[in-house]
């Protein structure tokens, strides 16, 4: 994964409130949405 593309994708998900980007970490707020993207059972 290129860093730029990853950051862009993370920011898109942050805008949707699926996660929150913090210093030193990422807080997953909507795991069900991520499961849909990942093709896993939500």
């Amino acid at each position: 994964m290129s860093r730029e593309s990853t950051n862009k994708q993370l920011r898109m998900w942050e805008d949707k409130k699926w996660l929150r980007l913090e210093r030193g970490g990422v807080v997953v707020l909507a795991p069900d949405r991520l499961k849909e993207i990942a093709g896993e059972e939500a």
Partner: protein
Amino acid sequence: MPQPFDKRAVLRDHPLFGGLGAGVIDRLAAYAHTKSVPAGSPIFAKGDPGTSLFAVCSGTVKISNQSHGGKDAVFNLINVGEIFGEIALLDGQPRTAEAIALSDCELMVIDRRDFVPLVKSEPEMALKLIEVLCGRLRRTSEQVEDVIFLDLPTRLAKTLLWLSSRAKPSSQGTKVTITQREIG
């Protein structure tokens, strides 16, 4: 001041060692020593001699590598009750990745010269170790498959879900202690 570990109690409660007989636990406890590592400190570097096996008694350890360009790749987060450092320990080759304490850690350390004879003499111990190695191999195979077959959003979502499944959830969500740079 941290309390000294009751090594036998830690080993009895440990998923890898817990099912072993009292005699084996006693042998392991006699060999093992504990080590405190503050958050952010390296435990070993890629290429170091693999002379020890580590069991996490408290804290989280990050297993990762850095490219020459400074890009990080995080392979695993090792939590309480898990072990790391087993690959180089078993094959006697240099470390394949670096290990860094992600939080303050208490580790139990067993040296190769003590551990390998134990594995040879205790088939149950060897089987448990093989289970750990199989788990690592499955995870690595899945990662390779993901890199080849999946697009970025799917891969990123899978990575975040996997990391969050290994973190403690709170009412505010599940914090994955990994930077954007390390994910990418």
